[in-house]
């Protein structure tokens, strides 16, 4: 019995390895044509022109990195506030319960609903703001996408950080309280230093999610295949260009270039996770 279970678990493990290898091989094989034609230049090629057959991934790489990091930056204060509220200030009680389930619910909303909401509610608001500042009122664009993304990743960071905050030994908090520290001082000088690696882990989890987020971003980013010149300009991300153009890509090279973007996205995500793990290990107490 025990042996059988062990065997099945082992098999499942191997199966996932094979799956992963399969994905990598498919991506590399699929992008072979594009790799042969453009080489490394594909990564910093600024032009994406299916008509003339020129393909470069830089606009999408830039779009992806800007929207993801911006979203991380915007969401961070809010996720920290929610975590501290739930983990330190109001651990129990109705309000805490409601807020906790609300943030969990945020994570469960399908991405397309976010996109739809963004399109119907957020974009008109952005348009008004842009008009006020005298900017071309697209409504859609890098900033809009980042804002939607930031809302989407809040639950990821906040739930992990809340858990990490609960792991701080009450011993340490009491030691600080016992020395006459206020709650805010305890948070600032004891809890945050103790949990910084966990908080970083939460941030990287959220970044990984933001990098690959497709549907909501595709709907509000404007889908313009050029390096955005401002935060209000429309742009495109790696994930959204694939989603948007895959069905139109009839030519071999076009399709292959899209697959290569997929490969690059995969590589970037792996690198982010790797760096994340490194940082977490280095800072762990």
């Amino acid at each position, binding site marked *: 019995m025990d042996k059988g279970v062990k065997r099945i678990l082992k098999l499942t493990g191997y199966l996932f390895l094979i799956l992963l290898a399969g994905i990598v091989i498919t991506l590399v094989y699929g992008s072979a044509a594009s790799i042969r034609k453009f080489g490394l230049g594909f990564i910093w090629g600024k032009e994406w022109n299916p008509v003339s057959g020129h393909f470069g991934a830089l606009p999408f790489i830039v779009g992806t990195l800007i929207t993801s990091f911006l979203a991380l930056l915007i969401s961070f204060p809010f996720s920290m506030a929610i975590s501290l509220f739930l983990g330190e200030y109001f*651990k*129990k009680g109705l309000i805490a319960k409601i807020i906790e389930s609300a943030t969990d619910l945020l994570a469960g909303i399908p991405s397309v609903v976010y996109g739809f909401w963004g399109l119907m509610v957020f974009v008109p608001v952005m348009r008004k703001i842009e008009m006020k500042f005298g900017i071309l009122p697209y409504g859609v664009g890098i900033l809009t996408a980042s804002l939607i993304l930031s809302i989407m990743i809040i639950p990821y960071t906040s739930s992990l950080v809340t858990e990490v905050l609960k792991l701080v*030994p009450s*011993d*340490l908090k*009491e*030691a*600080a*309280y*016992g*020395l*006459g*520290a*206020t709650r805010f*001082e*305890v948070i600032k*000088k*004891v809890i945050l*230093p*103790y949990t910084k690696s966990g908080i970083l882990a939460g941030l990287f989890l959220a970044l990984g999610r933001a990098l690959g987020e497709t549907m909501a971003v595709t709907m509000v980013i404007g889908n313009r295949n050029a390096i955005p010149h401002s935060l209000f300009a429309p742009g495109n991300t790696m994930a959204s260009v694939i989603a948007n153009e895959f069905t139109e890509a009839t030519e071999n090279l076009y399709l292959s270039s899209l697959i290569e973007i997929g490969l690059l996205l995969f590589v970037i995500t792996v690198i982010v996770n790797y760096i994340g793990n490194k940082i977490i290990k280095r800072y762990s*107490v």
Partner: protein
Amino acid sequence: MKDRVLEVKDFSAGFGDKTVVKNVSMEIYKNRVTSIMGPSGCGKTTFIRCMNRLHELNEQAFHKGEILLDGENIFKKNPIEVRKKIGMVFQRPNPFPTMSIYDNVIAGYTLNGIKLSKEEKDKIVEDSLKKAYLWEEVKDSLHRRGTFLSGGQQQRLCIARALAVKPEIILLDEATSALDPKATAKIEELIVDLKQYVTIVMVTHNISQAARVSDYIAFLYLGELVEYDKADTILTTPKDERTEEYLTGKFS
């Protein structure tokens, strides 16, 4: 005659609907070591955690009655101020793992946002570590994290940390129960020496420890203060038979 620092008046405390400390009245004398002794679950720890208002960090905690520090009711004061005057050393050594030894000692100042010059800090650190019998052992590794120290050293570091803010009273909550006999002996020796600077109130369920270090002993049983007197009197001629039974090991 003797200086009273702390005066407990008709004091009760507990959690939710459970009263753990029942109607205790007693006085704590300046520069003396007072032990609160009694079987597990008798409310010792809850009682001394009330003295610097750590008890109320628990959401279900309640208390009734007064504790006067130099004549002022601590429950009418800001808890932050109370805790600066009445420090605490806990059962398990708990130096801040993210801070160096040096930073741990002056944590009471940095946590409260008090800025000190380098000389002042150096002096406080050296003084406090010397008072806590730790200076010689750590003076060359002040800027390393305190986590590599042994349990006994960590506990002495916690004592130094409590001493650094110059409190009037230090509460020791079974401060040696997680330590080996040698480390315990060192801390007991330290406690006796420390009373020249501070008043010490300690909780212990170790009778011989109470006998070795205390000037006064309070015997708490099921939340009630059964007997409180000079250590010799309690240990040699207890008036209450429950005290005698406890001392002779009939229950623990």
